[in-house]
């Protein structure tokens, strides 16, 4: 049966900001959904609060609402747009939860619409653990023995029945939030306590431990005619006990016989039928006892998931796209397989390659966090690699995560075998590398298996890699046969060089002299049974290449690699835009990236896709293959963040043309001396700074600049390792860490501007003309990383003169550096004086994190324009072609506020307490939201609702402020009292407020002796609705930390800067005056034109 004609318009619910457990895979799925719906002639209405997504580009929907994803707001949209149906299965758990809330409120009936994709009953059956267990039992499967608990006493008695360790799983949370393994009662109290709070239904499940069992996941699709296919099987190398999102995984499953695999397949099909997912995809997880094959069904997600994105990229079967087609009425056999063009989608992909996914973690950003991997997901991104053997795929994946120490190494120094054997007992980010070294140092496969439960098959493969490494050392010369063998086991030139005591260039030269290069195979869903029409390639050291020759000139776009804090979706957005713009301009677009979650790695985004690690060697090989296939104009490296930028110099040295801003210009902006000279020549000022390569040099520089100073390693993104340092002693500690982050690079030491407004500018420059897209004002003061600071566009407090000064400075810098494309500059304006001095903090001649935000706020597609400038277009031409306004700079419509989303609730210290949530110069946010409205107050309030949940409109606020922040807090505190709020304060704050006639109730600091309620008590007993706590002095003082961690764990909104406090008060005031208004981006942008 073809499309359901009754569906004329569909509201697609997105997944909101990028958080741990819910990342840009839902942008990928949402984009596919929007495309499919529009191809079907269906009007698409979209809600998503995340401006960095491709799906919120106005051309992907007919009405795009960048609004908080709450049932209240969705109801307003339903009222305005009256969609015939709502699609909530492609927006992760956020969308599913929103749909369930809408159902509870009767919104579907009220607005005469319906849910498509999965019905409410199926969602409940899939997500409610007790019902799901019943289903598993009914179809003859087994679940882990378990008990449902609603209170701590339930939990304690259940654990006694099940025996420790027990697994705690809260209901209706995503990414395993709040779950963990408790080995004793005190751990249980901690984990289950958090779980009960995180679960919207205050429900947790306790179950028998199946730690160490083999873990599998099957991606299943079903249509309304009950045709079911398994798209992909995924096996976790890390056995049960580590969240799937944090596990190294492989596709297809490699250690099951057909009999065992078919058992999982049969169970999956029975489950999807019984749960009643009528159309669409779901994933089902299994544990298999390695000693007897007993199968336990763990859980299902009745929606498209992170694993679905991985499975789509791993197989070439576009799950989200197909799920959307099924939702509007098609059956699997009516849908064509895009890749073969001749066979239907009603089949099961078969792989003739191995896919390995490796998660990327950010523990370095949270040094106090417990590094153990558990059933709560903690990774912030992932890289995927494809090879013709497990070794090749694994080693490619490890170098794709772009983290020092991730690739296997064989240096003599380091931990002993015994130390390693102890360490591998506890899963951490580095366990696989420890396993590899332990095996290399002589541990047996059986020994390592006994400790880690990692399947011996994988261990044998790693042992084989170790054996080859020893041979690389021992071989007198690398014969062509041996060279091929090691390359086809995934060894990089760098690894071979390290083993042979030479350098990468020498090995490459040796390899090139032998004519040894990888071939490029195709991901085709069918193991070559049918011809593939989609150039989705991966490299392998094998014999036959499949790259087709072409006549059209190609542009190669380098993606941004795995998501990490500081380099995420925003950069993929820019790369995708370049691919679209350049394809439209008549170029053949070639994308290189290794992040399976992204839109850029969709085989539809570019003309050719290479799923490859973003290292010099791998990129050069793609360029070699493409150059052999046809003309290559060059490489665009300025859009994917630091990853491609870091490759630009090496590519240039290898004779590759870098399009747009040259590597020399990039280096110029990074080199403090050179850049300082440009500033000086143009009459611009930077805060005093210095460079140091040692502790002694650093102390001298700091003495000259005077403390406090801002210190950071050079060539990093996201403020990695950046700190504000107040004395020589902390400087020493910093220098040690910094040299680990970027060895061979100097450390930058800047004067820290206390009390300044920070400004972020995104602009285009073509060598002649400047187009200033937006001047954003940070809400938090300087010292908070720009990525973690909320910001507003247009700027709220700068005078027209100051804005003109900013523009003039931007133009001078762009010209001085030699930008051809995008530039982002951070300025600070001192608040110490009126109309204070303008300082240039840094300039980045590349796409910034704020490009998508500015694009959404102004309606100008900056990344597209930048990619065309890189190809030689002028801004004047872009103006005449309507890419840019015919005259003038970018104008923001309404007021747009960007707010960062922080992952505090994911991390705990080893003592089980939370990590500190105070903001600082090192970026720690995982994502962002945008609020757009007529006024700052409303826009800010929207951004808060979208990022943290609702601001309280009445109730109680607790204030505990640092000395510096006390005075500025008087007026916002008074405003709260006038709005009817009750205030609780600690002693100092209370004193100042009462002197100014603002009444508050005194609460004891936890460090103060005495009776009565302490600060933490009132938070833990939910007596407060909002917490304002700015850090007391410097360093983590215990009281502030206790307050902040308690708030995070209780899920109470907490603000840690005075600027944030002021903004929150204006938000609350705006919301009290009138309810949120909603307006689509398309309507906003009509206002400009």
């Amino acid at each position, binding site marked *: 049966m073809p499309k359901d004609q009754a569906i004329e318009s569909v509201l697609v619910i997105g997944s909101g900001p990028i958080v741990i457990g819910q990342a840009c895979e839902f942008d990928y799925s949402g984009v596919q959904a929007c495309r499919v719906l529009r191809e079907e002639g269906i009007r698409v209405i979209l809600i998503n609060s995340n401006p960095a997504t491709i799906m919120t580009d106005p051309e992907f929907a007919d009405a795009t609402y960048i609004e908080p994803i709450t049932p209240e707001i969705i109801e307003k949209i339903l009222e305005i747009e009256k969609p015939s149906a709502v699609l909530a299965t492609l927006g992760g758990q956020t969308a599913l939860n929103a749909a369930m809330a809408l159902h509870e409120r009767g919104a579907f009936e009220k607005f005469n619409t319906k849910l498509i994709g999965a019905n409410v009953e199926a969602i409940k059956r899939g997500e409610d653990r007790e019902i799901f267990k019943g289903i598993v039992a009914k179809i003859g499967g087994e679940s882990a023995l378990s008990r449902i608990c609603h209170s701590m006493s339930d939990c304690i008695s259940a654990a006694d029945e099940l025996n420790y360790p027990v697994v705690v799983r809260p209901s209706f949370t995503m990414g395993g939030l709040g779950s963990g393994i408790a080995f004793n009662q005190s751990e249980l109290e901690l984990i289950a306590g958090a779980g009960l709070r995180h679960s919207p239904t205050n429900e947790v499940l306790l179950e028998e431990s199946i730690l160490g069992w083999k873990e599998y996941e099957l991606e299943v699709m079903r249509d309304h005619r009950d045709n079911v296919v398994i798209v992909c099987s995924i096996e976790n190398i890390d056995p049960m006990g580590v969240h799937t999102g944090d596990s190294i995984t492989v596709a297809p499953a490699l250690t099951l016989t057909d*009999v065992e695999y078919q058992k999982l397949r049969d169970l999956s099909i029975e489950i999807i039928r019984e749960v009643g997912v009528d159309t669409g995809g779901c994933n089902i997880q299994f544990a298999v006892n390695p000693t007897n094959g007993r199968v336990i069904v763990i859980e299902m997600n009745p929606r498209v998931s992170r694993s679905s994105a991985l499975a789509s990229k791993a197989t070439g079967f576009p799950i989200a796209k197909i799920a959307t087609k099924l939702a509007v009425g098609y059956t699997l056999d009516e849908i064509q397989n895009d890749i073969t063009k001749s*066979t*239907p989608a009603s089949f099961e992909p*078969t792989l003739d390659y*191995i896919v390995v996914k490796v998660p990327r973690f950010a523990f370095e950003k949270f040094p106090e966090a417990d590094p153990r991997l558990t059933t709560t997901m903690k990774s912030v991104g992932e890289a995927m690699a494809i090879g013709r*053997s497990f070794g090749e795929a694994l080693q490619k994946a490890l170098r794709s995560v772009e983290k020092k120490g991730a690739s296997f190494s064989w240096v003599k120094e380091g931990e002993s075998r015994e130390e390693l054997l102890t360490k591998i007992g506890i899963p951490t980010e580095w366990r696989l590398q420890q396993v590899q070294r332990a095996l290399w140092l002589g541990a047996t496969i059986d020994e390592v298996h006994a400790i880690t439960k990692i399947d011996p098959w994988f261990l*044998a493969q790693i042992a084989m890699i170790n054996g080859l490494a020893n041979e690389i050392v021992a071989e007198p010369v690398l014969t062509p046969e041996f060279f091929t063998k090691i390359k086809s086991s995934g060894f990089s030139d760098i690894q071979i060089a390290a083993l042979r005591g030479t350098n990468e260039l020498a090995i490459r030269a040796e390899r090139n002299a032998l004519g040894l290069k990888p071939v490029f195979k195709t991901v085709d869903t069918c193991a070559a049974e049918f011809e593939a029409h989609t150039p989705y390639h991966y490299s392998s050291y*094998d*014999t*036959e290449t499949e790259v087709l020759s072409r006549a059209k000139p190609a542009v190669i776009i380098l993606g941004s690699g795995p998501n990490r804090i500081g380099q995420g979706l925003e950069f993929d957005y820019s790369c995708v835009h370049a691919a679209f713009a350049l394809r439209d301009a008549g170029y053949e677009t070639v994308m290189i990236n290794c992040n399976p979650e992204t839109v850029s790695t969709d085989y539809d985004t570019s003309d050719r896709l290479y799923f490859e690690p973003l290292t010099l060697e791998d990129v050069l090989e793609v360029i070699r293959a493409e150059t052999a296939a046809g003309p290559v104009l060059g490489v665009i490296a300025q859009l994917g963040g630091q990853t491609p930028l870091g490759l630009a110099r090496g590519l240039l040295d290898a004779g590759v043309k870098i399009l747009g801003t040259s590597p020399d210009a990039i280096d110029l902006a990074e080199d403090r001396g050179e850049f300082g000279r440009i500033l000086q020549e143009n009459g611009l000022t930077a805060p005093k700074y210095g460079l140091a390569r040692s502790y002694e040099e650093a102390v001298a520089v700091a003495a000259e600049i005077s403390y406090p100073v801002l210190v950071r390693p050079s060539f990093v993104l996201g403020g990695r390792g950046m700190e504000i340092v107040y004395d020589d002693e902390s400087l020493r500690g910093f220098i040690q860490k910094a040299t680990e982050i970027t060895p061979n690079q100097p450390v930058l030491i800047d004067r820290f501007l206390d009390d300044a407004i920070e400004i972020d500018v995104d602009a285009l420059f073509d060598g002649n003309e400047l187009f200033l897209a937006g001047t954003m004002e940070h809400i938090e003061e300087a010292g908070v990383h720009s990525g973690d600071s909320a910001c507003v566009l247009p700027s709220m407090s700068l005078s027209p003169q100051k804005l003109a000064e900013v523009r003039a400075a931007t133009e001078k810098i762009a010209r001085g550096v030699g930008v051809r494309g995008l530039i982002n500059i951070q300025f600070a304006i001192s608040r110490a004086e009126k109309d204070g001095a303008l300082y240039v903090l840094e300039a980045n001649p590349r796409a910034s994190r704020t490009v998508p935000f500015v694009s959404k706020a102004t309606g100008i597609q900056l990344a597209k324009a930048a990619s065309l400038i890189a190809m030689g277009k002028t801004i004047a031409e872009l103006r005449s072609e309507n890419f840019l306004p015919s005259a003038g700079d970018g104008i923001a419509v309404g007021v747009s506020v960007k707010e960062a989303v922080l992952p505090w609730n994911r991390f705990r210290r080893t003592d089980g307490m939370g990590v500190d949530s105070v903001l600082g110069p090192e970026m720690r946010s995982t994502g962002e939201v945008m609020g757009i409205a007529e006024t700052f107050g409303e826009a800010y309030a929207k951004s808060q609702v979208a990022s943290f949940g609702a601001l309280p409109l009445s109730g109680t606020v607790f204030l505990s402020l640092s000395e510096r922040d006390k005075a500025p807090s008087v007026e916002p505190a008074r405003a709260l009292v006038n709005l009817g709020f009750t205030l609780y304060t600690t002693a100092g704050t209370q004193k100042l407020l009462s002197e100014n006639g603002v009444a508050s109730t005194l609460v004891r600091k936890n460090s103060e002796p005495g009776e009565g309620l302490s600060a933490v008590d009132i938070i833990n007993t939910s007596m407060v609705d909002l917490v304002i706590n700015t850090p007391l002095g410097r360093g983590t003082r215990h009281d502030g930390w206790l307050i902040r961690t308690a708030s995070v764990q209780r899920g109470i909104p907490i603000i840690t800067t005075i600027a944030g406090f002021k903004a929150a008060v204006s938000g609350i005031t705006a919301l009290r005056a009138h309810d949120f208004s909603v307006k689509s981006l398309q309507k906003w942008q009509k206002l400009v034109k």
Partner: protein
Amino acid sequence: MSNAYLVLDDGTIFQGSSWAATGETFGEAVFSTGMTGYQETLTDPSYHKQIVIMTSPHIGNTGMNDFDMESDRIWVAGFVVRNPSPRVSNWRSGYSLEDALIKSGVVGIQGVDTRAITRHLRDRGAMRVGIFSGTELSRDEMVIKVRGSEQMSGAFLAKDVTTPKKYVVGVPKGVEKKFIVAALDLGIKRATPRSMAQRGIEVHVFPIDATSDEIMSINPDGLFISNGPGDPATMTATVALVREFLTKSIPIFGICFGHQILGRALGFNTYKLPFGHRGINQPVKNIKTSKVEITAHNHGFAVAAPIEGNFATVFGSGFVSHICLNDGVVEGLELLERPAFSVQYHPEAAAGPHDAQYLFDHFAEMMAKSSASRGAHA
């Protein structure tokens, strides 16, 4: 590890390393796309005289066990893999794949670009091939030897794989015995009688040369015609036997080779596919229900029957009950006036999905109806 060569009829040579038994072997080159189930494939008699190329890059991971044998020996003429496993990992495993191949004298080759070979066969069609491992022949000598080997078209192979004497697969404990079926063994897989036995069918497996009288002596409720190797056009005696049973109105069920034989008995031709269907992911549409089943395939020949509407045969009208959605090949036949049906694919799976197991129920229902009507006549 010495060099080994995979030499194709058209002169193409792929160099790899020796693996499993050494020596030389010849057969028809076929590729199988299943990601699991190499043990079942190796022991499936339908692969007799075929050299199987596995598209899945790692083979041997789970070793070999005593439970997943589809017959009592390995049948393939040669085995081509990219990365054999250095270690076996599975709780049921008894021994390694390479040991099993060596014990059976099966010549293998490893380290070849199996995807390139697959693409070659896909584009040029199935062809004769040889593996030369540890031999000292020139390239020309090897090609000449391959060109001198036996062709699959016109090959009568079922005689090599059939059981030497009749045996019975009884219903398992706790299952009620409902029917007796005579199964003609042209290369039967163990999973087939097992699937029937689970449904209360006692299966008497007959050798290929069983006469009609011998079969009738067990008073069967149904006749089953198994899968097997070779060209169906060579099966004239079996086709004649099936025609005889069609006139008796005893329910008939054929799988794979058995389906081709039923097709020929009904008067259709069989033809060689360019490169065949071998895998466990093939979408087949059931014309009656419009549902798609994911199925296991292993066939190089197919039946030429009209897909649209009903067709007429000397045994009454019938229709194509199943087609392959990938290429429209006939995958099932069913008669309307007589109880006979067949499928080109493998409902018994092993290896492969269990989506088509309902066909054994269909056979049982057909026998129930038939015995009820015979009962009425009696």
